């Protein structure tokens, strides 16, 4: 984005912040209800090191969950694409898990992981939500090979292994990469929800900071933590978009 095109959104943000600040001061809004931007900025500055650490904890948990989900989803997706029986067996479970609201199953994970190990519950829950997009990307991708190429592989008598390694897996790369991009965003959501539900300080993540500040009615600190979370999630999304672009350039040569 060029400097000129950044100008309009920036101007709007400054305008809104100014209106917010003015509104709080003129209307004598209590700061536990709606703190002015200046207070939020102060809270952000004061809490920066601990907020950054908490954000890093949530991020690393989400990335660990993404890795676990990736290994599981790609292998199960492979099995499902190779065997219709596996596909039929796995599909209802995967969809069922996908449509059940995350927040509803989060307490189960906290119970299973044990009150003393909230971090495990956070990783598990984030991995569960990250699973589906990677799984469905893998299954769709493995089936998306060009029908003409499939026919040529028939014509040249390719073995099932040759077909998998030389046709279906390479054809699936874009869909698998996209699945990971979507899953990365969901892993953050899963980690945040699990931290909320775990509710104790054991997880020490950014969501817990939000919860803690909220409970103490330190609304400016709460805003600051939300801001850090939003920025972190946005950076993660940008990183995965950039990764996806690079992967596609590698895949089809620019």
């Amino acid at each position: 984005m060029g400097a000129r095109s950044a100008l309009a959104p920036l101007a709007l943000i400054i305008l809104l912040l100014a209106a917010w600040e003015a509104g709080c001061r003129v209307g004598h809004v209590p700061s536990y209800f709606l703190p002015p931007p200046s207070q939020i900025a102060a809270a952000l500055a004061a809490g920066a090191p601990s907020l950054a650490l908490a954000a890093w904890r949530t991020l690393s948990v989400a990335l660990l969950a993404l890795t676990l989900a990736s290994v599981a989803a790609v292998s199960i997706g492979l099995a499902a694409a190779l065997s219709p029986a596996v596909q039929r067996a796995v599909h209802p479970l995967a969809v069922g898990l996908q449509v059940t609201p995350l927040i509803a199953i989060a307490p189960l994970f906290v119970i299973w992981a044990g009150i003393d190990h909230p971090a495990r519950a956070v990783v598990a829950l984030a991995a569960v939500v990250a699973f589906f997009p990677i799984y469905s990307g893998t299954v769709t991708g493995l089936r998306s090979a060009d029908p003409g190429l499939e026919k040529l592989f028939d014509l040249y008598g390719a073995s099932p292994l040759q077909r998998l390694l030389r046709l279906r897996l390479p054809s699936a790369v874009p869909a698998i990469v996209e699945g990971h991009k979507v899953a990365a965003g969901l892993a953050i959501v899963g980690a945040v929800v699990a931290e909320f539900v775990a509710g104790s300080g054991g997880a020490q993540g950014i969501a817990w900071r939000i919860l803690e500040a909220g409970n103490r009615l330190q609304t400016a600190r709460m805003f600051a933590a939300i801001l850090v979370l939003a920025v972190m999630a946005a950076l993660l999304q940008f990183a995965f978009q950039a990764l996806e672009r690079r992967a596609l350039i590698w895949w089809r040569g620019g």
Partner: protein
Amino acid sequence: MTAAPASDGEVAALAAVEVVYGPGPPALGPFDLSLRAGEIVSLVGASGCGKSTTLRLLAGLEAPSAGAVRLAAGRGETSMVFQSPTLAPWLSALANVSMPLDLEGAPGSKARERAAAALRRVGLSDAQGARPAQLSGGMAMRAALARALVTSPKLLLLDEPFAALDEITRRALADDLLKLWASERPAIVFVTHNVEEAVYMAHSVVVMTPRPGRAAARIAVEGELPRPQGFRTTAVFRQTAEAVSAELASAMASA
């Protein structure tokens, strides 16, 4: 039995084949077609008349519901080109062309050498490292032709290979294809919607009826292949094209 050996000089033949998909009228047949070594036959007909089914039968990818398919060209001796180039986007032009050899388990260096030679023959020596996304439509189709020719097939099945190209490119490719044919003389079945192209490309044109596809007529095209310059303006070309058009019209009308 559907894969009896072909008689002398015959590369492939369909004898009274019928193909039925589910209830309703058959998709094809009864249909006869025989193809001698080095012979080029065009198939013309309306969409859905079973031209692609015919190619699948000749490729051995499908068995007929009735009748016999005789194939002298064995595995690895038949190649196909489709309407779209169907190149693998993640592979270079060279790797795409060597794919049939790789699947046969040919040693890598030998496969690359033959693929490079095939690319040279279609005029793409400079594009060896290019990915399909970087090739124009005509270049991609040339690469697909190179991939079909790299195995030195006895039988080449072309399913509307030029349909997606502009007129200038398709004429250039038609002449190039005939020149390539002249060096190794594979038998070719050329499926097209275009009457002029059908006449230009082949020793004879088979006009097919609408579903179920049958041979309405087989019209021989006089003159040598590859075509001499200006063939499109000759009386022979015009008259043959008119005869094919007339057969096509009456085949459609009788449907």
